[in-house]
């Protein structure tokens, strides 16, 4: 029996026809590596491939077809990892024809794709994370859904059931079905929706303090906070699925007439948000509307650190941090403090990228430096 290590790590990576990598075989050092290359060299592509093996889709939101190298029929990615169950091998192949995706863990397909999710334990920090703060509530729901699916047993099945029940209920509302039929679909919606809301609320309560502490450390004393903003009033304060379901029942009853007019379900987890707030002039204000670019980036980084914390607590292991050129556009003081914080709090494997050597001088001077050029890594 292998003992699970205290740090997660990618040990080896093999890519075939993934983005601009025709063939890539890498051995990754346990402490990590700094990868330097020009714009368009493939830095983000490499991190995208690594994290693909965690969630089996692109963290950039790209459809699988787009990950296939131009002119090829499919891609293949495989990593040897120290992860959730000790050493293992995660692989995925995708064929453009028939859009077939085959995932395997230690050579065998998992019973459900959900079983293979998060088998490493990794977090990506990317410049596009600013959308977590500045973007629509859908961005933050996606964040919540990924963090909880990977770290809370039962979340993903509840979410899938909720979405399925919701689509059916919306179909009924569109066609003006009888109250008896609507009621029949409500029980599945309430049961799964209650579980989703309760797990979101519990996570936000736990994560709140960590978010504020990190935001403050990076911004030198400015304060911000995170709170669950459910579409169902009061559901943010509860941690019990049955109570959350009852609140949802009440909220649905209150909008029943409007729902019949509009033909869609108007309240529920699909309308939730995560509030990211700063205190300004005596009031809590939304960072989305009032934050500067730098403040929004800071909040996004704090959120990712909270994600890392969630992984650490859920699995008792240090997550891998994948840092994609995150210090671009931040003032030098902030960059340095983020770095210090990461060095302090994320002792696990770190794989980071930057376009210029100088961007990495201040960071983890101890990591080996590799160059990347046009889809080739020069170790």
């Amino acid at each position, binding site marked *: 029996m292998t003992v699970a290590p205290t740090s997660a790590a990618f040990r080896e990576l093999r890519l075939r026809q993934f983005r601009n990598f025709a063939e890539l075989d890498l051995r990754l050092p346990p402490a990590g590596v700094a990868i330097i290359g020009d714009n368009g060299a493939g830095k983000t592509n490499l991190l995208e491939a690594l994290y693909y093996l965690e969630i089996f889709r692109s963290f950039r939101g790209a459809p699988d077809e787009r990950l296939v190298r131009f002119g090829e029929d499919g891609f293949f990615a495989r990593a040897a990892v120290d992860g959730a169950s000790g050493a293992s091998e995660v692989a995925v192949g995708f064929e453009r024809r028939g859009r077939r995706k085959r995932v395997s863990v230690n050579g065998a397909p998992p019973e459900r794709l959900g079983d293979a999710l998060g088998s490493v334990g990794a977090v990506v920090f990317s410049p596009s994370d600013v959308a977590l703060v500045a973007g629509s509530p859908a961005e933050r729901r996606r964040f919540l859904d990924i963090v909880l699916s990977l770290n809370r047993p039962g979340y993903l099945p509840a979410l899938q*059931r909720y979405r399925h029940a919701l689509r059916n209920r919306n179909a009924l509302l569109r066609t003006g079905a009888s109250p008896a*039929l609507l*009621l*029949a*679909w409500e029980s599945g919606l309430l049961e799964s929706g209650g579980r989703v809301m309760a797990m979101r609320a519990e996570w936000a309560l736990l994560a709140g303090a960590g978010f504020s502490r990190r935001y403050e450390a990076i911004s030198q004393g400015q304060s911000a906070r995170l709170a669950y903003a459910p579409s169902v009033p009061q559901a943010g304060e509860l941690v019990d699925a049955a109570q959350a379901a009852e609140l949802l029942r009440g909220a649905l009853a209150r909008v029943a007439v409007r729902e019949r007019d509009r033909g869609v379900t108007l309240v529920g987890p699909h309308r939730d948000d995560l509030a990211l707030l700063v205190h300004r002039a005596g009031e809590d204000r939304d960072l989305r509307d009032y934050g500067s670019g730098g403040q929004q980036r800071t909040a996004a980084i704090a959120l990712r650190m909270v994600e890392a914390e969630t992984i650490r607590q859920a699995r008792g292991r240090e997550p891998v941090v994948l840092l994609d050129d995150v210090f671009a556009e931040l003032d030098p003081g902030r960059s340095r403090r983020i770095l210090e914080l990461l060095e302090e709090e994320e002792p696990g494997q770190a794989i980071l990228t930057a376009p210029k050597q100088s961007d990495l001088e201040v960071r983890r001077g101890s990591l080996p430096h590799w160059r990347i050029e046009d889809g080739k890594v020069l170790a």
Partner: protein
Amino acid sequence: MPLIDDLTAELARLPGIGRKTALRLTYHLLKRPADEVRRLARALESVAERVRPCTVCGNLTEQQPCALCGNPRRDPTLICVVEESSDIGAIERTGEYRGLYHVLGGRLSPLEGIGPDELNLRSLLPRLGGADAGTGATAGAPGVIREVIVATNPSVEGEATAVYLQQLVRPLGVRVTRLARGLPVGGDLEYADGVTIAEALAGRREL
């Protein structure tokens, strides 16, 4: 060759059979002795002609009513509602259930356009002594049925169908129960093993 193409096209309409498999089956059949192929054709013809839904319970059968409905040793006070005829076999194999059945022929699925009218519900209420949804006439032997066990699949659709049935049946004063959880969620009853189904039956609860 149009005849070969016709057969391939027909086979390809079957669930789980793509064009390639259909072709392979066609050429396989062409290589078999003509007698064997005729036997298959006759078997298909006979089921098409003689197998019908039972007029009482909806189970697929060659006789009316079906062997289960016609069996005097079955407990006439219990009705187990299932989605498909094939689910009956799964429950029968447990040997734990002695009552009657009612086959819906599907489950509610608004996304696929399946509502109550698409299911075999019309004939259920008269069996329970309620009014026929269409004619308003009552039939059957009112008061005989003590309990309706809803054994739809544990999918979101199956659960919704169960709740809908409960709303229909409850006003008639008949007890409505649901199989206990423990069946694989999203799994089909048809594929669950006997022990699991027997446990789910024993642990059924009031809806």
